[in-house]
């Protein structure tokens, strides 16, 4: 056969002399829609483009139909097919029906060849950047700052995996099966993974600038790295990961968060309404955000706003505040509605509430874009509470106001992704509340009250703790207040899910995710002209203890025998899987 090949090849070459250029050369075509290694790592500018793409993979949720508050007890979602309803509320989470989280937040890696990227794709990109830039002859200043950014990004991606799954394989190399068979890594313990993330952030924090110039906004800063570190430490200190209640963990978190505060560059805005508009982007309260542009903007108003505005559908209404959230807003006097002294009137539930209530929730009778939102039954309103879930209209009787820009038309926004408010990952109020929580748990109640007050009283929202509780407040009471304020202050900012997970308050008889979703049905059943405010059970929910950890997707186990062989240990794995699945 070789001989025939040789003859044919000779004939080919002979003919091609006459008819074509040499065969091989003629088939050599340089593609114009891709680059080679040498181009990408050939200059600092080009390498920057590689890093740009990693930044672009940040899981901002300005453009996602599903968000983390849907997974929690803050918001209900009308669409039956969304993960919250099919998988979370029904406790249907399993290794074969896992969910990737909004924007694939804790998607592991690729299952097949064509599905979406997971965190390990992003981690590989960081590893490749770190590897190539370290090897390169780029300037020291470039290397210092950009390598710190890449390590910040890598830690960021790892922290989602760690929060969702506990311990995960820690890969800092660029895997290549052509040169190395050692591509199968075991899971590290949750503790080791925690240590990796916080060590990395600690090592790079001082290589990052304190502030960014306007053309560099969106890149990592020292404050961003420290806040992430503090948040991870807080998570690590909380009930779920700290069953022994080791106070030193809280102290560690408090120290890091104090570092953020001591940077001295962050300030609270006058009210929470001053945070999610184009005009207030990049204000002093923001620690880390994802930048929007007109070409790549957000769709929050179309996805999460009130469904009918001026008689027509403007939104999908995917963020429907629950009655449980609404009930957690205090009265204007600072007392919770459950306090007999609060003055709460169940027949007029929306009167005399704290300011954040009116800044956050659209309820029956509130005004949005100049129009009254009516959810009560029987007056022919298109926003009448949808008890059969046969439309996008609210199932709870509420819509979201906070994080939305009232000047943006929802229907247009849905189509055009033209929302210009940046997506805020970390802001100063969050840091203050985290700090208050950490110092309280570490044993310093008075400092906790001081920092809590800063958030609680901002913009004349409520009186201070001292004024509300002149007789003093117990540690347990204060813990409840901090948690409630955290829920209210950060509602619809995708924090609540992680909070109820780390506090471990989802399951059991009192579990916040183990009870029905509530809504408010306002009706006049007896026809006496007086509106009755009746609690309405929207949907049942079940939360099983195993669900504090996401199941390792079955394909991950199927493809990695090393993980499959991991059993027991401090995290109690069964064949590499988290317990209970």
């Amino acid at each position, binding site marked *: 056969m070789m001989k025939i090949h040789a003859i044919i090849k000779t004939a080919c070459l002979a003919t*091609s002399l006459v008819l074509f250029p040499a065969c091989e050369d003629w088939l050599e075509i340089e593609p114009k829609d891709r680059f080679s290694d040498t181009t990408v790592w050939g200059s600092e500018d080009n390498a920057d483009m590689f890093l*740009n*793409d990693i930044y672009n993979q940040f899981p901002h949720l300005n453009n996602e139909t599903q968000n983390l508050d849907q997974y929690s007890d803050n918001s209900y979602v009308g669409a039956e097919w969304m993960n919250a309803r099919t998988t979370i509320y029904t406790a249907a989470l399993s290794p074969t029906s896992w969910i990737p989280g909004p924007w694939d937040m804790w998607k592991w890696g*690729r299952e097949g*060849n064509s599905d979406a990227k997971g965190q390990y794709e992003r981690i590989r990109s960081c590893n490749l950047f770190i590897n190539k830039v370290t090897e390169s002859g780029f300037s020291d200043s470039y290397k210092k700052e950009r390598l710190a950014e890449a390590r910040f990004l890598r830690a960021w991606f790892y922290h989602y995996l760690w929060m969702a799954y506990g311990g995960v394989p820690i890969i800092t190399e660029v895997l290549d*099966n052509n040169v190395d068979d050692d591509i199968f890594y075991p899971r590290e313990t949750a503790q080791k993974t925690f240590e990796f993330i916080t060590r990395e952030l600690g090592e790079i924090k001082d290589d990052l600038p304190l502030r960014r110039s306007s053309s560099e906004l969106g890149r990592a800063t020292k404050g961003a790295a420290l806040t992430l570190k503090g948040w991870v430490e807080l998570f690590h200190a909380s009930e779920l990961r700290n069953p022994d209640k080791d106070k030193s963990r809280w102290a560690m978190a408090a120290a890091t968060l104090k570092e953020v505060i001591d940077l001295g560059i962050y300030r609270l805005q006058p009210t929470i309404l001053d945070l999610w508009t184009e005009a207030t982007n990049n204000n002093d309260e923001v620690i880390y955000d994802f930048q929007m542009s007109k070409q790549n903007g957000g769709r929050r108003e179309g996805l999460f706003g009130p469904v009918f505005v001026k008689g027509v559908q403007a939104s999908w209404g995917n963020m429907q505040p629950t009655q449980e959230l609404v009930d957690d807003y205090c009265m204007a006097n600072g007392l919770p509605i459950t306090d007999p002294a609060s003055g709460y009137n169940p027949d007029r539930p929306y009167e005399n509430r704290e300011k954040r209530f009116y800044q956050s929730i659209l309820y029956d009778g509130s005004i949005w874009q100049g129009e009254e939102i009516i959810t009560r039954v029987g007056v022919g309103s298109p926003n009448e509470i949808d008890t*059969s879930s046969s439309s996008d209209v609210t199932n709870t009787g509420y819509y979201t106001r906070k994080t939305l820009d009232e000047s943006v038309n929802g229907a*247009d926004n*849905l189509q055009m992704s033209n929302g210009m408010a940046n997506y805020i990952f970390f802001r100063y109020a969050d840091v203050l509340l985290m700090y208050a929580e950490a110092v309280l748990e570490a044993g310093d109640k008075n400092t906790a009250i001081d920092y809590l007050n800063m958030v609680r009283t901002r913009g004349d929202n409520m009186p201070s703790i001292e004024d509300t509780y002149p007789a003093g407040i117990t540690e347990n009471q204060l813990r409840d207040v901090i948690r409630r304020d955290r829920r209210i202050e950060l509602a619809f900012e995708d924090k609540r899910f992680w909070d109820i997970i780390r506090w471990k308050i989802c399951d059991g008889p009192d579990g916040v995710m183990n009870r029905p979703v509530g809504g408010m049905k306002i009706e006049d059943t007896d026809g006496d002209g007086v509106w009755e405010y009746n609690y309405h059970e929207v949907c049942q929910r079940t939360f099983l203890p195993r669900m504090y950890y996401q199941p390792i997707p079955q394909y991950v186990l199927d493809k990695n025998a090393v993980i499959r062989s991991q059993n027991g240990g401090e995290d109690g794995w069964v064949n590499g899987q988290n317990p209970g699945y």
Partner: protein
Amino acid sequence: MNRIISRFALLSLMGLLPCQVRANHSALPDEVQVQNSFSIGKNITVKGTVVDKNNEPIIGANIIVRGNAGNGAITDLNGNFTLTVPSDAVLTVSFIGYGSKEVPVAGKKTLHVVLEEDSELLDEVVVVAYGTQKKISSTAAVSSMKTKDVAQKPVINISNSLAGRMAGVIAKQGSGEPGADGADLRIRGVATLGNQSPLVIVDGVPRDFSRIDPNMIEDITILKDAAAVAPYGMAGANGVVLVTTKKGKNGAPVLSYNGYVGFQNPTRITDQVNSYEYALMKNEAAMNAGYPNYYAYSQHDLEMYRKTCEGAADADRDLYPNSNGLRDLIQGNSVITNHNLQLSGGSEKFQYYVSLGYSYQEGMWSTTDYQRFNLLTNLSVDATKYTKVSLGLSGWHEKKNYPGAESGDIMYQAYRTPPVSAIQYSNSLWGQYVGKSLFGLAYHSGYREEPADQLNTTLSIEQKLPFIEGLSLKGVINYDPYRKKNKKYFTPIPVYTLDASQDPYQYMEGFQGPEKPNLEQSFEESVSMTYQGIINYARTFGKHTVTGLGVVEARERNVWNMSAKRLNYGINVDEINAGSSNPADMGNGGTSWKERQVGYAFRLGYNYDNRYMAEVSGRYDGHYYFAPGKRFGFFPAVSLGWNLGEEAFMKNVEWMDKLKLRLSYGESGNLAGGSYQYMSDYGFGTAGNIGGVPVMGMWENLQGNPNITWEKAKKFDVGVEFSILNGMFSLEADYFYEKRSNMLMAPNALVPAEYGITLSQVNAGSMHNQGIDLSLNFNKKINKDWLVGVKGTFTFARNILDEVFETDATYNNPNRRRTGRPDGTMFGYHALGYFTYDDFNPDGSLKAGIATQPWGQVYPGDLRYEDLSGPDGVPDGKIDEHDQTVIGFSNWAPEIVFGLAPTLQWKNFDLNALFQGATRTSISLGETLVMPFFDSGSATKLQFKDHWTPENQDARYPRLTSEVTVNNHRQGSSWWVRDATYIRLKSLEIGYTLPRKALDFIGLSSLRVYASGQNLWTWTPFIKELVDPEAKSANGKYYMQQAVYAFGLNITF
């Protein structure tokens, strides 16, 4: 002659005929004069009759004087002709379907010519790679189809006419959308996981055939075995479709017209519930979800919906509507039409064929339609005694018009909108559901226009070399430019919402979609150039015939595109420069690339006395897809044939016309994956925002595989052809076996999920595919009035994956193992039926011994799956992926397909039909078709009638529920898989040819009227859900296949 002229005059009045043709014919008498003056013999007037062997006159037969094609005539309705010719002239008499005959005049004034029908056996020619062969001496497995059989069928896209008509062809039409309704073709099933489509060659060059007017196609041939496909090298392994367009023939001009007008309706429409039924179902679901005291719809609501559904006089249609998305959306009897005019003729030295076609197809909604103009010109001239020059010029212009919304979105909305949501109010304004209006999407969403032009040019020069008998050289240049434009103008969709708090009701106008119009335009141009140098040799030495073919072929394609868009049109002018002048509202893009391949093909044949045949063929082929050193491959094939029927010992067997055996073996290749997978490379584009503005980004595309190359196919074929009783019955049958190795596969099963990058494919897989295909023919002329015939085809092909990458999890579980099973096998849970009350303890937990299911709490009436295995291979009391097993056949490649085409002629009536079917294939139904309220959607009548209730535990569908257990039901399981066996009346045609007297009166050579239908009836014994068995998307949300009734005319002038 007067009649001919008057006919042309008539046509020219109609503006249908190019003027040069008219000019030629008005000059006809002069040419006759010229001829006469040069003739040696004395001119005489000859009267003649042309008949067939049953002494039936042949109408429209061509008579020309040999050596002077300008002098000729056509027989009239009685088969008579009159011609003034030199007394020593020789007349060539011909007619389609009959052997032509040379008749010396020899001074006679009357001639009686008997034409013999073509002996299909000895003279039948088959099209093969780079040429033609006599069927009798061919050693390759091919099937072919004359398109005269299908040109009158109301099918715009010819790819939909192959199913059932050709053995070995598996065709599946996934969609009925005008302009996007082509069938996916598979030759002899599936033998690879990569690209499975056959190579399509039109007039010698790779081209798209789906847009050619079927009237312009002479022949479609399928090359099936190695002997047939080897000259196509690394492009041939999936089989080859060879399309040959019509060429001119010697003879007087023949002008003919074929056209039809038809009406389309979906083959099947899902029967949706009415609003009363929907409300009842919703209430039942609410109760099942755990709200026994709470119903979604009150008694009053129910009563009001019932009134609307019953059409009561006091019904409130606007507040309590009764919509039906599919019924309301689909306009019945949408138009389809095709018109074709063709002219052909020629002399010995010059032949021409010219044809024009026009097609129009309307959509299920009036904003969708498709228009196409076709042109074909084939000219050939004998420039010298040894030189023949041919020019082929063909092309099409098409225009697709769609609404701004995609058909999938429209159909989705039609399935989704529940009947309780008004699609259209009583005042005819359109309503909305989940912010979208069905009518708005279909009629008010702007437009998408996709005009495209294709030109195919072929210039060939064939030079005989007189010094070597039988040797000729041919050079061919093909220049095929193509351009496509795309214009999308999206406008705000007005939608209306009822404000029932007002009296009378108010209808609030709002907008769905962008607040202001947006425009996107793109332009793509590609130019394909193909250069072929061909050397041909054919010579007979006594009983030995030797043939040889050599081909050098190079091909290059250059593609170039660009796009632009603007947002926020303040003025409603749909031009790119009329949009917003804000730079942030503008965008553009574009790229270009080049593709090249080069190959050297050959074929050498030897034939002894038409009894023993042997052939070798092959190709040395190179392609730019691969790395240097990996680009060229050699693909040889060898084949043998034995015509037993020609052997001396068979000569006495009178009833046996033909008996032939064939055998072939060879290698072929397949370009299974994409280009440049040998490189590790980076992509680039816009990547998010830094500093509030979009920035460029780069990313790793994939990890390259420097060794990647083509797939290798080893093909074996043995075939038998026989024909008996003067062609009354004939059969051709083949057994084939193919082993595909080097199969491209994504090796992602070999690396952990943490690996972090897509790997290029590797040539590591193998599979085999075997089966039989056969076609049989029966034709019988019972008497003068009756002719009956049947043509049948049957294909069975089953593939097995021999080596594929799979994880331990599937490989080590015999139920789940992919290796050793056919590609496309469906896996999932085996549903045992429903949980019953007996399965539960009083506290609602499952009784001991019943496997638990992880997708939420289950209740009686929920699907129960079988516990087949656990991680250790034994049932473990837990349903998880280890319990998956085979639940169905491949959906897209049925193992068995067949067709049966009876024909009948009685006097002037003719009838033909095609029944076509498939079996050993499955369909997995999903979403709204089987799951009520899916995506907050509607439900079907079948679901309403037959779902689980305590009284109906033997139901088709599980208990109704809006929550809690939907995830349990939605697991891929045998419960949703249906046997997709079907038989359909693919086409039916009844024609009537006008008798001679009538034709005489209106002055035409031939006139036939016909009624024709497509997809008229479909039988699916196992699919009760009203969905087409060929449905592309098994959730019903796609553009439905259409049934067509048409009425047409064939005229020969």
